[in-house]
Protein backbone atom coordinates (compact mmCIF):
# COMPACT_ATOMS: atom_id res chain seq x y z
CA UNK A 1 0.00 0.00 0.00
CA UNK A 2 1.31 3.47 -0.93
CA UNK A 3 1.37 6.44 1.42
CA UNK A 4 2.13 10.04 0.52
CA UNK A 5 4.43 11.91 2.90
CA UNK A 6 4.41 15.64 3.65
CA UNK A 7 7.21 17.15 5.73
CA UNK A 8 7.21 20.28 7.84
CA UNK A 9 10.73 21.64 8.34
CA UNK A 10 10.05 23.86 11.32
CA UNK A 11 7.13 24.39 13.61
CA UNK A 12 4.72 26.92 12.00
CA UNK A 13 5.89 26.12 8.43
CA UNK A 14 3.51 24.70 5.85
CA UNK A 15 3.82 20.96 5.14
CA UNK A 16 5.22 20.19 1.68
CA UNK A 17 5.14 16.99 -0.30
CA UNK A 18 8.38 14.99 -0.09
CA UNK A 19 7.56 11.53 -1.46
CA UNK A 20 6.08 8.12 -0.97
CA UNK A 21 6.51 5.09 1.27
CA UNK A 22 5.19 1.55 0.91
CA UNK A 23 3.72 -0.01 4.05
CA UNK A 24 0.89 -2.40 4.90
CA UNK A 25 -0.55 -0.23 7.69
CA UNK A 26 -0.43 3.24 9.24
CA UNK A 27 1.90 2.20 12.04
CA UNK A 28 4.59 0.97 9.69
CA UNK A 29 3.95 3.84 7.25
CA UNK A 30 4.80 6.27 10.04
CA UNK A 31 8.01 4.39 10.86
CA UNK A 32 9.10 4.21 7.20
CA UNK A 33 8.25 7.86 6.62
CA UNK A 34 10.33 8.81 9.64
CA UNK A 35 13.29 6.85 8.34
CA UNK A 36 13.02 7.80 4.68
CA UNK A 37 11.91 11.40 4.88
CA UNK A 38 12.65 12.69 8.34
CA UNK A 39 16.30 11.80 8.80
CA UNK A 40 18.39 14.02 6.58
CA UNK A 41 16.58 17.30 6.60
CA UNK A 42 15.35 19.26 9.60
CA UNK A 43 11.88 17.98 10.42
CA UNK A 44 9.31 19.10 12.92
CA UNK A 45 6.49 16.84 11.80
CA UNK A 46 5.32 14.54 9.02
CA UNK A 47 1.85 13.97 7.57
CA UNK A 48 1.36 10.47 6.18
CA UNK A 49 -1.71 9.99 3.98
CA UNK A 50 -2.96 6.86 2.18
CA UNK A 51 -2.39 7.35 -1.55
CA UNK A 52 -6.04 6.47 -2.25
CA UNK A 53 -7.18 9.33 -0.03
CA UNK A 54 -5.40 11.89 -2.18
CA UNK A 55 -7.50 13.31 -4.99
CA UNK A 56 -5.74 14.88 -7.96
CA UNK A 57 -6.80 17.52 -10.48
CA UNK A 58 -4.59 17.87 -13.54
CA UNK A 59 -4.08 21.11 -15.45
CA UNK A 60 -5.11 19.43 -18.72
CA UNK A 61 -8.25 17.76 -17.31
CA UNK A 62 -11.32 18.87 -19.30
CA UNK A 63 -12.88 21.99 -17.86
CA UNK A 64 -9.94 22.77 -15.56
CA UNK A 65 -8.61 26.32 -15.66
CA UNK A 66 -5.83 26.88 -13.18
CA UNK A 67 -4.55 30.34 -12.31
CA UNK A 68 -2.50 32.13 -14.88
CA UNK A 69 -4.07 30.48 -17.92
CA UNK A 70 -6.77 33.10 -18.40
CA UNK A 71 -6.21 36.80 -18.85
CA UNK A 72 -7.32 38.43 -15.60
CA UNK A 73 -5.15 41.51 -15.20
CA UNK A 74 -7.92 43.21 -13.27
CA UNK A 75 -7.35 40.76 -10.40
CA UNK A 76 -3.80 41.91 -9.65
CA UNK A 77 -2.59 44.72 -7.45
CA UNK A 78 0.01 45.51 -10.12
CA UNK A 79 -2.78 46.62 -12.48
CA UNK A 80 -3.72 49.61 -10.32
CA UNK A 81 -0.75 51.89 -9.84
CA UNK A 82 -2.49 55.17 -9.26
CA UNK A 83 0.19 56.47 -6.92
CA UNK A 84 3.89 56.06 -6.16
CA UNK A 85 3.72 54.82 -2.62
CA UNK A 86 1.26 52.70 -0.70
CA UNK A 87 0.79 51.61 2.90
CA UNK A 88 3.45 49.06 3.86
CA UNK A 89 0.97 46.17 4.09
CA UNK A 90 -0.30 46.96 0.56
CA UNK A 91 3.29 46.97 -0.72
CA UNK A 92 3.83 43.60 0.96
CA UNK A 93 0.70 42.16 -0.68
CA UNK A 94 1.86 43.48 -4.04
CA UNK A 95 5.33 41.94 -3.63
CA UNK A 96 3.70 38.54 -3.03
CA UNK A 97 1.59 39.01 -6.14
CA UNK A 98 4.61 40.04 -8.21
CA UNK A 99 6.36 36.89 -7.08
CA UNK A 100 3.33 34.83 -8.15
CA UNK A 101 3.28 36.61 -11.52
CA UNK A 102 6.96 35.76 -11.99
CA UNK A 103 6.19 32.11 -11.20
CA UNK A 104 3.43 32.14 -13.80
CA UNK A 105 5.72 33.70 -16.41
CA UNK A 106 8.38 31.13 -15.53
CA UNK A 107 5.88 28.28 -15.99
CA UNK A 108 4.85 29.67 -19.37
CA UNK A 109 8.39 29.57 -20.75
Amino acid at each position, binding site marked *: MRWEVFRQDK*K*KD*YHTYVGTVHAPNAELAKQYAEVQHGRRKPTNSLWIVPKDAVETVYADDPGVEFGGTTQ*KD*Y*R*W*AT*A*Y*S*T*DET*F*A*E*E*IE*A*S*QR*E*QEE*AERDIAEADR
Partner: protein
Amino acid sequence: MDVETVEARAGPREFGPGDDMPEEYRKAATRMIQFHANSEIMGAYLERPFIREAPSIDRKLAFSAKVQDEIGHGQLLYRAAEELGVKTREQMLDELARGEGKFLNCFHYPMERWEETPMIAFFVDGAAMRRQATLKRTSWEPYAHAMDKICFEEGFHIKHGESILRELMTGPRAVQERTQAAFEEWWPRILQFFGPTDDQSTHHDFSAAVGLKTMTNDALRQAFLNAYVPKARQYGLELPDEPRVYRDAETDRWVVEQDDLDWDEFWTVAKNDYDGSHVQIGKRERTQEAVEWVRDAIESPGQGGVTPAAADD
Protein backbone atom coordinates in the same frame (compact mmCIF):
# COMPACT_ATOMS: atom_id res chain seq x y z
CA MET B 1 -2.90 23.29 28.61
CA ASP B 2 -3.88 25.85 31.23
CA VAL B 3 -4.14 29.58 30.65
CA GLU B 4 -0.80 30.28 32.39
CA THR B 5 0.99 27.91 30.00
CA VAL B 6 -0.77 29.48 27.02
CA GLU B 7 0.29 32.95 28.14
CA ALA B 8 3.88 31.80 28.67
CA ARG B 9 4.08 30.15 25.24
CA ALA B 10 2.01 32.73 23.32
CA GLY B 11 3.68 33.82 20.09
CA PRO B 12 3.08 33.93 16.34
CA ARG B 13 1.41 30.74 15.01
CA GLU B 14 2.18 28.99 18.26
CA PHE B 15 -1.03 26.95 18.69
CA GLY B 16 -2.92 24.70 16.29
CA PRO B 17 -5.59 22.00 16.14
CA GLY B 18 -3.18 19.47 17.68
CA ASP B 19 -2.88 21.47 20.89
CA ASP B 20 -5.15 21.02 23.86
CA MET B 21 -6.30 24.61 24.33
CA PRO B 22 -8.24 25.85 27.35
CA GLU B 23 -11.86 26.85 26.89
CA GLU B 24 -11.13 30.56 27.49
CA TYR B 25 -8.70 30.59 24.57
CA ARG B 26 -11.00 28.65 22.27
CA LYS B 27 -13.93 30.93 23.04
CA ALA B 28 -11.93 34.14 22.65
CA ALA B 29 -10.44 32.98 19.35
CA THR B 30 -13.84 31.85 18.08
CA ARG B 31 -15.40 35.22 18.96
CA MET B 32 -12.64 37.07 17.13
CA ILE B 33 -12.49 34.89 14.00
CA GLN B 34 -16.26 34.58 13.71
CA PHE B 35 -16.55 38.40 13.82
CA HIS B 36 -13.92 38.62 11.11
CA ALA B 37 -15.60 35.95 8.93
CA ASN B 38 -19.03 37.58 9.34
CA SER B 39 -17.53 40.91 8.33
CA GLU B 40 -16.10 39.45 5.12
CA ILE B 41 -19.54 38.13 4.18
CA MET B 42 -21.46 41.27 5.13
CA GLY B 43 -18.95 43.49 3.30
CA ALA B 44 -19.42 41.41 0.17
CA TYR B 45 -23.20 41.88 0.41
CA LEU B 46 -22.81 45.66 0.47
CA GLU B 47 -20.60 45.61 -2.60
CA ARG B 48 -22.46 42.99 -4.61
CA PRO B 49 -25.01 45.42 -6.18
CA PHE B 50 -22.09 47.35 -7.70
CA ILE B 51 -21.20 44.43 -9.93
CA ARG B 52 -24.40 45.37 -11.75
CA GLU B 53 -24.04 49.11 -11.28
CA ALA B 54 -20.38 49.44 -12.22
CA PRO B 55 -19.85 52.23 -14.78
CA SER B 56 -17.51 50.22 -17.03
CA ILE B 57 -16.67 46.65 -17.93
CA ASP B 58 -13.28 46.93 -16.16
CA ARG B 59 -14.91 48.01 -12.91
CA LYS B 60 -17.53 45.30 -13.28
CA LEU B 61 -14.88 42.58 -13.66
CA ALA B 62 -12.87 43.91 -10.74
CA PHE B 63 -15.90 44.25 -8.48
CA SER B 64 -17.11 40.76 -9.24
CA ALA B 65 -13.59 39.40 -8.56
CA LYS B 66 -13.47 41.32 -5.29
CA VAL B 67 -16.89 40.11 -4.08
CA GLN B 68 -15.90 36.56 -4.97
CA ASP B 69 -12.66 36.97 -2.98
CA GLU B 70 -14.46 38.34 0.09
CA ILE B 71 -16.93 35.44 0.21
CA GLY B 72 -13.94 33.10 -0.11
CA HIS B 73 -12.22 34.90 2.79
CA GLY B 74 -15.33 34.35 4.88
CA GLN B 75 -15.20 30.64 4.15
CA LEU B 76 -11.48 30.40 4.98
CA LEU B 77 -12.11 32.12 8.28
CA TYR B 78 -15.11 29.99 9.25
CA ARG B 79 -12.83 26.99 8.67
CA ALA B 80 -10.14 28.49 10.91
CA ALA B 81 -12.78 29.17 13.59
CA GLU B 82 -14.34 25.74 13.25
CA GLU B 83 -11.00 24.10 14.11
CA LEU B 84 -11.35 25.52 17.62
CA GLY B 85 -14.22 23.12 18.25
CA VAL B 86 -16.58 25.69 19.75
CA LYS B 87 -18.99 26.25 16.84
CA THR B 88 -19.52 24.68 13.44
CA ARG B 89 -19.57 26.69 10.23
CA GLU B 90 -23.33 26.03 9.92
CA GLN B 91 -23.93 27.39 13.44
CA MET B 92 -21.99 30.54 12.65
CA LEU B 93 -23.86 31.10 9.38
CA ASP B 94 -27.18 30.54 11.17
CA GLU B 95 -26.22 33.03 13.87
CA LEU B 96 -25.40 35.59 11.19
CA ALA B 97 -28.76 35.09 9.45
CA ARG B 98 -30.62 35.27 12.78
CA GLY B 99 -28.97 38.57 13.67
CA GLU B 100 -26.90 37.12 16.52
CA GLY B 101 -23.57 37.24 14.69
CA LYS B 102 -21.55 40.42 15.16
CA PHE B 103 -19.70 42.18 12.33
CA LEU B 104 -17.84 45.36 11.49
CA ASN B 105 -19.61 48.66 12.23
CA CYS B 106 -19.15 50.05 8.68
CA PHE B 107 -21.12 47.21 7.14
CA HIS B 108 -24.31 48.16 8.99
CA TYR B 109 -24.82 51.22 6.78
CA PRO B 110 -26.42 51.23 3.33
CA MET B 111 -24.20 51.95 0.34
CA GLU B 112 -26.23 53.25 -2.54
CA ARG B 113 -24.14 55.38 -4.88
CA TRP B 114 -21.04 54.62 -6.91
CA GLU B 115 -19.24 57.57 -5.26
CA GLU B 116 -19.53 55.72 -1.96
CA THR B 117 -17.70 52.62 -3.16
CA PRO B 118 -14.14 53.81 -2.47
CA MET B 119 -15.17 54.63 1.11
CA ILE B 120 -15.30 50.88 1.66
CA ALA B 121 -13.02 49.61 -1.09
CA PHE B 122 -10.23 52.03 -0.17
CA PHE B 123 -10.64 53.36 3.38
CA VAL B 124 -12.47 50.57 5.21
CA ASP B 125 -10.54 47.85 3.40
CA GLY B 126 -7.35 49.80 4.00
CA ALA B 127 -8.09 49.88 7.73
CA ALA B 128 -8.96 46.18 7.67
CA MET B 129 -5.77 45.37 5.77
CA ARG B 130 -3.69 47.19 8.39
CA ARG B 131 -5.25 45.02 11.05
CA GLN B 132 -5.03 41.83 9.01
CA ALA B 133 -1.32 42.31 8.32
CA THR B 134 -0.70 42.19 12.08
CA LEU B 135 -2.82 39.03 12.36
CA LYS B 136 -0.32 37.06 10.28
CA ARG B 137 1.40 36.83 13.66
CA THR B 138 -1.63 35.70 15.65
CA SER B 139 -1.10 32.70 17.92
CA TRP B 140 -3.87 30.53 16.36
CA GLU B 141 -2.06 28.98 13.40
CA PRO B 142 -5.11 28.29 11.16
CA TYR B 143 -6.06 31.98 11.54
CA ALA B 144 -2.56 33.07 10.53
CA HIS B 145 -2.65 30.72 7.54
CA ALA B 146 -5.96 32.25 6.43
CA MET B 147 -4.30 35.69 6.74
CA ASP B 148 -1.49 34.61 4.39
CA LYS B 149 -3.98 34.07 1.59
CA ILE B 150 -6.27 36.95 2.49
CA CYS B 151 -3.45 39.51 2.59
CA PHE B 152 -2.12 38.17 -0.70
CA GLU B 153 -5.44 38.99 -2.37
CA GLU B 154 -6.37 42.11 -0.47
CA GLY B 155 -3.68 44.33 -2.05
CA PHE B 156 -5.65 44.32 -5.30
CA HIS B 157 -8.87 45.29 -3.55
CA ILE B 158 -7.43 48.38 -1.93
CA LYS B 159 -5.42 49.53 -4.93
CA HIS B 160 -8.57 49.11 -7.03
CA GLY B 161 -10.49 51.19 -4.48
CA GLU B 162 -7.79 53.85 -4.68
CA SER B 163 -8.01 53.78 -8.45
CA ILE B 164 -11.79 54.43 -8.25
CA LEU B 165 -11.20 57.29 -5.82
CA ARG B 166 -8.66 58.93 -8.09
CA GLU B 167 -10.93 58.53 -11.10
CA LEU B 168 -13.81 60.18 -9.25
CA MET B 169 -11.67 62.99 -7.84
CA THR B 170 -10.23 63.82 -11.27
CA GLY B 171 -13.70 63.72 -12.85
CA PRO B 172 -16.29 66.46 -13.34
CA ARG B 173 -16.82 68.93 -10.50
CA ALA B 174 -20.25 67.44 -9.66
CA VAL B 175 -18.73 63.98 -9.28
CA GLN B 176 -15.97 65.37 -7.05
CA GLU B 177 -18.59 67.05 -4.89
CA ARG B 178 -20.63 63.87 -4.56
CA THR B 179 -17.45 61.97 -3.62
CA GLN B 180 -16.58 64.58 -0.99
CA ALA B 181 -20.14 64.28 0.40
CA ALA B 182 -19.80 60.49 0.55
CA PHE B 183 -16.47 60.90 2.33
CA GLU B 184 -18.01 63.21 4.94
CA GLU B 185 -20.79 60.72 5.53
CA TRP B 186 -18.46 57.74 5.89
CA TRP B 187 -15.45 59.32 7.61
CA PRO B 188 -16.86 59.18 11.18
CA ARG B 189 -17.74 55.50 10.74
CA ILE B 190 -14.28 54.81 9.36
CA LEU B 191 -12.75 56.54 12.41
CA GLN B 192 -14.85 54.26 14.62
CA PHE B 193 -13.49 51.17 12.84
CA PHE B 194 -10.86 50.70 15.53
CA GLY B 195 -13.27 51.36 18.39
CA PRO B 196 -13.10 54.06 21.07
CA THR B 197 -9.65 55.46 21.90
CA ASP B 198 -9.80 55.29 25.68
CA ASP B 199 -9.52 51.56 25.53
CA GLN B 200 -12.97 50.33 26.49
CA SER B 201 -12.29 47.10 24.69
CA THR B 202 -13.18 44.35 27.12
CA HIS B 203 -11.60 41.58 25.12
CA HIS B 204 -8.21 43.09 24.43
CA ASP B 205 -6.31 42.16 27.58
CA PHE B 206 -6.93 38.45 27.36
CA SER B 207 -6.63 38.32 23.56
CA ALA B 208 -3.28 40.13 23.74
CA ALA B 209 -2.01 38.00 26.62
CA VAL B 210 -2.60 34.78 24.68
CA GLY B 211 -1.22 36.22 21.43
CA LEU B 212 -4.46 36.29 19.46
CA LYS B 213 -4.17 40.05 18.98
CA THR B 214 -0.73 41.42 18.32
CA MET B 215 -1.42 45.16 18.30
CA THR B 216 -3.76 47.45 20.22
CA ASN B 217 -6.61 49.25 18.49
CA ASP B 218 -4.88 52.50 19.32
CA ALA B 219 -1.62 51.55 17.59
CA LEU B 220 -3.60 50.33 14.56
CA ARG B 221 -5.56 53.58 14.41
CA GLN B 222 -2.33 55.61 14.45
CA ALA B 223 -0.84 53.53 11.62
CA PHE B 224 -4.05 53.81 9.60
CA LEU B 225 -4.28 57.60 9.96
CA ASN B 226 -0.57 57.97 9.13
CA ALA B 227 -1.11 56.22 5.83
CA TYR B 228 -4.63 57.25 4.82
CA VAL B 229 -5.10 60.89 5.84
CA PRO B 230 -2.33 61.98 3.43
CA LYS B 231 -3.90 59.77 0.74
CA ALA B 232 -7.33 61.37 1.23
CA ARG B 233 -5.83 64.87 1.00
CA GLN B 234 -3.69 63.96 -1.99
CA TYR B 235 -6.78 63.04 -4.00
CA GLY B 236 -8.43 66.29 -3.02
CA LEU B 237 -10.71 65.11 -0.24
CA GLU B 238 -11.10 67.52 2.65
CA LEU B 239 -11.41 66.24 6.19
CA PRO B 240 -14.67 67.65 7.61
CA ASP B 241 -14.44 70.15 10.52
CA GLU B 242 -16.07 67.54 12.70
CA PRO B 243 -15.14 65.03 13.92
CA ARG B 244 -11.93 66.82 14.82
CA VAL B 245 -8.88 64.82 13.80
CA TYR B 246 -5.42 66.35 14.07
CA ARG B 247 -1.83 65.57 14.71
CA ASP B 248 -0.62 66.63 18.14
CA ALA B 249 2.78 68.29 17.56
CA GLU B 250 3.91 67.56 21.10
CA THR B 251 3.25 63.81 21.15
CA ASP B 252 3.54 63.45 17.35
CA ARG B 253 0.39 61.34 17.45
CA TRP B 254 -3.04 61.58 15.88
CA VAL B 255 -5.85 62.75 18.10
CA VAL B 256 -9.46 61.89 17.32
CA GLU B 257 -11.84 63.94 19.46
CA GLN B 258 -14.04 61.25 20.94
CA ASP B 259 -16.90 63.63 21.78
CA ASP B 260 -17.34 64.45 18.09
CA LEU B 261 -18.23 60.85 17.31
CA ASP B 262 -21.65 59.28 17.90
CA TRP B 263 -20.87 56.49 20.33
CA ASP B 264 -24.52 55.76 21.11
CA GLU B 265 -24.93 54.90 17.46
CA PHE B 266 -21.73 52.83 17.55
CA TRP B 267 -22.94 50.73 20.47
CA THR B 268 -26.40 50.36 18.88
CA VAL B 269 -24.65 49.10 15.75
CA ALA B 270 -22.56 46.76 17.90
CA LYS B 271 -25.80 45.23 19.21
CA ASN B 272 -27.07 44.72 15.63
CA ASP B 273 -29.87 47.10 16.51
CA TYR B 274 -29.30 50.02 14.13
CA ASP B 275 -31.84 50.53 11.30
CA GLY B 276 -29.20 49.55 8.77
CA SER B 277 -28.31 46.45 10.80
CA HIS B 278 -31.83 45.10 10.30
CA VAL B 279 -31.71 45.85 6.58
CA GLN B 280 -28.31 44.24 6.00
CA ILE B 281 -28.98 41.20 8.20
CA GLY B 282 -32.38 40.80 6.54
CA LYS B 283 -30.70 40.63 3.13
CA ARG B 284 -28.32 38.00 4.40
CA GLU B 285 -31.16 36.02 5.97
CA ARG B 286 -33.27 36.05 2.79
CA THR B 287 -30.30 34.96 0.70
CA GLN B 288 -29.45 32.20 3.15
CA GLU B 289 -33.04 30.91 2.78
CA ALA B 290 -33.17 31.41 -0.97
CA VAL B 291 -30.11 29.24 -1.57
CA GLU B 292 -31.11 26.49 0.80
CA TRP B 293 -31.79 24.35 -2.28
CA VAL B 294 -28.11 24.70 -3.25
CA ARG B 295 -26.91 23.50 0.15
CA ASP B 296 -29.51 20.74 -0.04
CA ALA B 297 -28.34 19.63 -3.46
CA ILE B 298 -24.72 19.59 -2.27
CA GLU B 299 -25.43 17.67 0.92
CA SER B 300 -27.79 15.11 -0.64
CA PRO B 301 -27.48 15.14 -4.44
CA GLY B 302 -30.47 13.90 -6.43
CA GLN B 303 -32.85 13.87 -3.48
CA GLY B 304 -35.16 16.62 -4.71
CA GLY B 305 -35.82 18.84 -1.74
CA VAL B 306 -36.39 22.60 -1.62
CA THR B 307 -37.56 24.36 -4.81
CA PRO B 308 -34.81 26.36 -6.51
CA ALA B 309 -35.03 30.13 -6.03
CA ALA B 310 -32.89 33.05 -7.14
CA ALA B 311 -30.74 34.74 -4.52
CA ASP B 312 -31.10 38.16 -6.12
CA ASP B 313 -32.30 40.71 -3.61
